[in-house]
């Protein structure tokens, strides 16, 4: 069974068909990139999978269970982690406390009133921070971190519920080229080690073609291509939506 399967997912805003009849699936341990020009419907698609938007029609199956329309926190409980396009932490907490809050929630201990939160799951939180190389910053206020480090901490938080599926909305947005490859390598390593499936959107094509196992392309709300890097590179329709065919200008030439 696929970890995630979309069947005929559709969403419109007023008269705009943001996502039309999109279907695809992700296998276990697959690193799947979703690309497409601006306005293709990537974010809408993403926000339906993570529960921020309810689809008009279609199914979103996580290991066979339809999650369409569930609240984000319920989807998280089913083992779907996510990171945000603009990374941020809980600014009034230290780095490790950020991870601890997620672990506490995962253990369903949110409503406990007595034992200090700092003593909950500290060892496990340090382990997660070590995986993203942030263990040395554990007790620093998280709001003091550089942006690249915030991205790493966010990844550690997203791993707190041992997700089987990780949704990453433009994981490298706002990062420099060197940092970008570092982060994606780290994610790729974790995916391989833990057998997590990842769906990510990305604007930087070098990252996509270098790391993704498979690529799907959206344009104007429709899925137009699905395949490995070589297939996508040679797909005429993909070239057209990204670069245009040039036919429009042919007749105008003097």
């Amino acid at each position, binding site marked *: 069974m696929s970890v995630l399967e979309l069947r005929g997912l559709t969403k419109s805003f007023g008269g705009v068909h943001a996502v039309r009849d999109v279907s695809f699936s992700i296998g276990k341990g697959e690193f799947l990139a979703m690309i497409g020009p601006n306005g293709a419907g990537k974010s809408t698609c993403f926000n339906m999978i*993570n529960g921020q938007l309810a689809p008009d029609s279609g199914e979103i199956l996580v290991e066979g269970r339809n999650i369409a329309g569930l*609240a*984000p*926190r319920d989807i*998280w*409980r089913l083992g779907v982690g*996510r990171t*945000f396009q603009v990374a*941020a*932490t*809980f*600014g*009034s*907490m*230290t780095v490790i*406390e950020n991870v*601890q*809050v*997620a672990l*506490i*929630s*995962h253990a369903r*201990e*949110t*409503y*406990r*009133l*007595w*034992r*200090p*939160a*700092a003593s*909950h799951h500290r060892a496990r939180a340090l382990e997660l921070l070590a995986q993203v190389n942030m263990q040395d910053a554990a007790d620093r*206020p*998280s*709001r003091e971190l550089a942006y690249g480090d915030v991205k790493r901490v966010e990844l550690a*938080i997203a791993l*707190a*519920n041992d997700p089987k599926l990780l949704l990453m909305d433009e994981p490298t947005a706002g990062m420099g080229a060197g940092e970008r490859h570092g982060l994606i390598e780290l994610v790729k390593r974790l995916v391989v080690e833990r057998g997590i499936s990842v769906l990510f959107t990305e604007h930087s094509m070098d990252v996509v073609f270098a790391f993704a196992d498979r690529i799907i392309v959206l344009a104007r709300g429709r899925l137009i291509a699905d395949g490995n890097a070589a297939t996508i590179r040679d797909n005429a329709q993909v070239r057209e939506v990204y670069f245009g065919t040039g036919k429009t200008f042919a007749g105008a030439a003097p």
Partner: protein
Amino acid sequence: MTLNAFLFQILNGLSSASGLFLIAAGLSLIFGVTRIVNLAHGSLYMLGTYIAYTFATKIGGVTGFWGGIIATALIVGLLGALIEIVLLRRIYRAPELFQLLATFALVLVINDAALWLWGPADLLGPRAPGFRGAVEILGRRLPTYDLFLIVIGPLVLLALHLTLTRTRFGRLIRAATQDREMVGALGVNQAVLFTSVFALGAALAGLGGALQIAREPANLATDLIALGDAFVVVVVGGMGSIPGAYLAAVIIAEVRALCVGIGTVDFGFVTINFSKFTLVAEFLVMAIVLIVRPFGLLGKAQGAVRSIAEPEEPIRPATPMLKALGVVVLVGLLCLPLLAQGSPYLLVLGIDVLIAVIFATSLHFIMGPGGMHSFGHAAYFGLGAYGAALLVKWLALPMGVALIAAPLLALCGALLFGWFAVRLSGVYLAMLTLAFAQIVWAAVFQWEGFTGGSNGVIGVWPPAPFDKSWAYFLLTLVLAVAAVLLLRRFLFAPFGYAMRAGRDSPLRAEAIGIDVKRVHWLAFGVAGLVCGIGGGLFAFAKGSISPETIHINRSIDGLVMVLLGGVQTLTGPIAGASVFAVLHDTVMRQTEYWRALMGAIILLLVLTFPQGIVGAFASLWRKAGGRL
């Protein structure tokens, strides 16, 4: 009720709706452009009634009355422009909590100014020249002035609508309401725009007040009553929507009029006097609207609330030094009864301070770590105080039971109101909590047979041995220390972290499985519970209580205490409450114009001391290299 009587009540409701609309429209307009909720809007309305009264009686006749009303609107509009230029311009970039407090300071100052200028007595204006009679409609006599008022509401609505859609000024207002940064970037002089919008809103409030003089006397309590009404209307209609304000004004006024019209109904098994339930009905309307449309009937969802306040330091467990300091203070307080043998007043002051500490700490619990700026915390204090006092009065229950029941009653109130409040954020939450508190206040005030109305409840004295002030002081001390430590414990526990996670980033908190609304709702309940302890203690400490206990002034006092200490620190509310209570009991009692003094203190605090006492002390300390 016959059909005719029903239709007549509808007409009655329409005439009251105009007044509600005028004040709510101004409030809405000002908020739309400047993003400031002008708490002094009710005060401008009140000034309108007083100024128009002066014109109508000093000049008299048609000129004095009708000319006076026009002149009043202009004068109040000018006053609004002055307020905008002198005060609000300095605080547009401040956190909204500070903006709300600054405008509340104006409420206090204007109220004392009116007291000084016009005295404490109610002043009833003359009847309107040209509209002295009544016409017979549906077999009843309706004053022609009421008919005039029915017409004036839609007229002003039409005028505003035309201004907003057909003039350059109106286009600028609508543009600024949508995106004021962009309007600024396009080269529009924002200063002039903001000033003129504030003046227009103020003039509408002044006009609304002035038109009332032929119906109701000018009264010093009008400011907050009008403000509470305007909030209900704006919340129901939708912030920033002028047609919404009119629609909501009509709905609220009709609901009120119909409740009064229905009067006492005998259902056979039970007799209900509906005219006592105007406030409950209003509350129900508001509740239903908020459930169905959280941003009001014609309102739009608000953008994320931006806060320009400095981000917070992570909370740390108490350092040995802080613990030692706590022990020293505690020992000092335990010795107070011995020190106070010469001056029993010291113990009274001590009890006041401790109750203030409970009040402020419980408010800080939801306001700081929860990020919910409640402007109606006095409701839970009042529920506790009245709960305790009424149990003693009606059921003659012992103090122990009353002191346990008080927080439970407050908890119920907090859970009820909190359920609605946590669905909103920012200024909406502030307005809703304030409106709830006003409703509790008015219910206590109106339900005379049960609560004693404005006289309150008297003879609530503690039994022996607590009739000795030293014993009662120790009881208060034990409960206050327990309350403070308990709330602190909660903040360090997973629950407190979940609460802060929900405040720091609701989206992210939900994405890690936290039910933010539920967490904040329960926090609201906890704060209400603890606040109720303070209320119960207050009732027995004073021996009598009055609606003053729930008054909006007490809610604001709480906010000032927390801000005085510093909202971002855990010890802040304790220090703030202590300083405030001592100031209140010593300095404020020296003058009749304590409101103005209080207003001046708030303005000073907001403009010069935004971190509070403990916050300022802590940053000095950090600069010196220490850690607190």
